């Protein structure tokens, strides 16, 4: 028998029926993958129109948005796919935590998934910066200055990001390259690895005892692929509907025809970093912008080793063995949502 290809690796002949239910995974991992692919499919044509220079960036976005046929659709799809991706990926993380799917032997894949989420945040931020308007310019200024707060390597990090002491064309080209290549390639590799590891770790997290007993109802590959198709169509419908009726935001351009920067609107951070902006109002930037976000990441990364090392309860919703992990992640989630809402209403 021939060695199975990657698709067959991800879709074994049968999988446990309980865990293959939409009501269990909500298809969040697959949706995230589809959205990421949508971002590439829409992002590449956008690269043909976007000019990554301080003088022309805003202008080229306007040509894409208002002049090129279906340019508005491409840009809206790209924007909404990014928004949806951050949502589905975050929900995917919550599903994994609350159903105990990070447990041994899946700790390493938990790390891979977390890395993909973090890189997706950086991808979204770099994409936001490419708009190069008064809103994103404000976020870029705040964001890069936060890196200066990092102890010891702050200034080095700042110069690495910005490409000099001030925000210039160099900065824009760096963010452009990170956005279109430097972050995309690692994420693609990580996504492949993440999916590969799912099977390597014994398939999607499921109840071990039932599997061993051989009584677990199982689902054929064909059925799984069909379900994936339905979920894909559903998410595409949502993506296109959003893109047709709600345009991706733009603000007054920075540069040649810019108004004074003082007119920067009050919300500088992109929506997914509003919670950090809220923290920045409360505490000094070293804490609000560096230690707290890093602490959250570190806590999440170490979750399978520090908060819950037990094996039992895999694929069981809210299993008592994962109580600490569930409470901590739940608290972080509620905290981020509340801070985001508070900052949004500012």
């Amino acid at each position, binding site marked *: 028998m021939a060695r199975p290809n990657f698709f067959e690796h991800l879709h074994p002949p049968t999988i446990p029926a309980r865990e293959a239910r939409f009501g269990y995974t909500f298809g969040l991992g697959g949706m995230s993958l589809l959205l990421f692919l949508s971002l590439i499919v829409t992002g590449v044509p956008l690269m043909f129109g976007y000019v990554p220079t301080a003088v022309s960036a805003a*202008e080229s976005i306007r040509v894409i948005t*208002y002049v090129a046929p279906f340019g508005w*659709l491409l840009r809206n799809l790209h924007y909404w796919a990014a928004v949806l991706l951050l949502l589905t990926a975050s929900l995917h993380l919550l599903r994994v935590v609350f159903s105990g799917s990070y447990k041994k032997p899946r700790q390493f894949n938990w790390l891979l998934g977390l890395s993909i989420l973090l890189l997706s945040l950086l991808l979204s931020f770099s994409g936001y910066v490419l708009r190069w308007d008064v809103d994103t310019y404000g976020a870029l200024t705040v964001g890069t200055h936060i890196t200066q707060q990092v102890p010891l390597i702050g200034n080095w990090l700042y110069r690495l990001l910005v490409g000099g002491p001030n925000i210039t064309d160099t900065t824009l080209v760096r963010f452009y390259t990170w956005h279109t290549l430097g972050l995309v390639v690692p994420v693609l590799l990580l996504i492949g690895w993440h999916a590969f590891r799912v099977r390597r770790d014994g398939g999607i997290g499921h109840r071990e005892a039932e599997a061993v007993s051989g009584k677990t109802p199982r689902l054929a590959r064909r059925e799984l692929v069909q379900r994936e198709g*339905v979920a894909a*169509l559903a998410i595409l*419908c949502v993506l*296109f509907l959003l893109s047709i009726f709600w345009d991706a935001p733009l603000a007054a351009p920075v540069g040649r025809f810019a*108004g004074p920067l003082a007119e920067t609107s009050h919300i500088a951070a992109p929506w997914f970093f509003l919670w950090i902006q809220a923290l920045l109002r409360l505490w000094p930037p070293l804490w609000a912008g560096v230690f707290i976000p890093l602490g959250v990441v570190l806590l999440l990364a170490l979750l399978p080793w520090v908060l819950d090392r037990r094996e039992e309860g895999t694929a069981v919703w809210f299993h008592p063995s994962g109580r600490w992990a569930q409470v901590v992640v739940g608290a972080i989630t509620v905290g981020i949502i509340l801070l985001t809402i508070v900052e949004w209403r500012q």
Partner: protein
Amino acid sequence: MSGNQKATAVLGLAFLLIVLGAVVRQARQPAVVQLTPTLTGQPELCLTCHEGIEEISAAHSIEAFGCVLCHGGDGLALDADLAHATMRGGRNPSDLAVVEESCGGSACHSGAAEDSGDHIHRVLTSVQATYAGAIAQVNFAFGGQADATAVFGITAVTDNNITTDTGLAALAAFHPGSDAPGPVQAFSSDCLLCHLSAAAIEAPYYYRATGCAACHVVYENDGLYRGSDPTTPKDEAGYGRSHQFTTAIPYYQCNHCHNRGNYSLRQMSFLERDDLPGASSLSAQEQRELEYYQPISQFTLCEWELDCVDCHTNGEVMGNGDIHSHQQDVQYVQCQTCHGTLTEMPLLETITDPAHPAIISADLNPNYSVELGDTVIATTQGETFGWVQWDGERLVETGKVDGRLYEVPLVLGSGCQQKPDEQESAYCHECHTYERTVK
């Protein structure tokens, strides 16, 4: 069909319909109209929505200026909010808060060495902009300052090229504090309605713009737009008659501020006239008579028939570049300017310089022209009335607003009994009062 197949069919159909929706939206996008003005070389898409709008003036041709050079804004955005959010002065780039940025520069309307060429400086220092006269009178009358010489203006302004005896070096911004006399505070909060930076009262007869456009963009009394910009509302008051500058400024444009009522210093409030006609079938002449001046006033026939700009000069209205305490410091045109006196003809000047201001001004007005060799009225302040010309036998005035011709009677050789030292208009009114024909 299995559940999956049904769901696939339904969602597939929905997806096709949604994609069709995207095609419909694309099909409904307006055809982009791009303009690359020669002065900026930067393309702009404003005409996509505003195609058909009037060119602001021949001197500011759309091919050379486009829209963004004066208006600012995001000229490549086809979303109205985004496109308009960064416009200078909202719809009016000539608002005095932004006029230097919009209209200034040594190639345009500021920065000239001579005050006469620095239009923005002249307007900013003029009493119409500073409101210095009214502020000084009220502040003095209620004990806020020692005499009636102006100290304050609507905004702080300085002049380092004083050319007249009454010129002042600077005015501070008028912001009376809580220690100022009560009436002065009330005046400051309730009565600063009549200057070039004040927003118009939003009511018929009062609609107007601010800054340069307060005079040079004509508003009809109903404040409705009558031009051909497809996206400027036609049924919403508060817009100019059309998107055009003019020096043919009709009397009713001046009247959007002047002759609209009086201030009550007792109540510290503006009392609007209550005798202005509503929408009616009055003839233009009847409307003019009813509207022109307030009933208590006395005027001559030419003051009823002509328009304000036929007599009041550029230097009087826009100022002479000095800061003054009183409008009367710059107002100098009298009946004798055109009619002369018993002993003298009015001052005349024959135009010999092709760049003479009389020729430039005439080029900006559609109703009269001045050519080399023409002899026109000159004033004691060095201005000329290019629209009042001497043909060797007669003095003929061409109405700046309507082009009507009037023969200007001369005092010289008439039976007029004026005394040589009584040349102000009040003396002329004693004999030459005109009673209005409509009641």
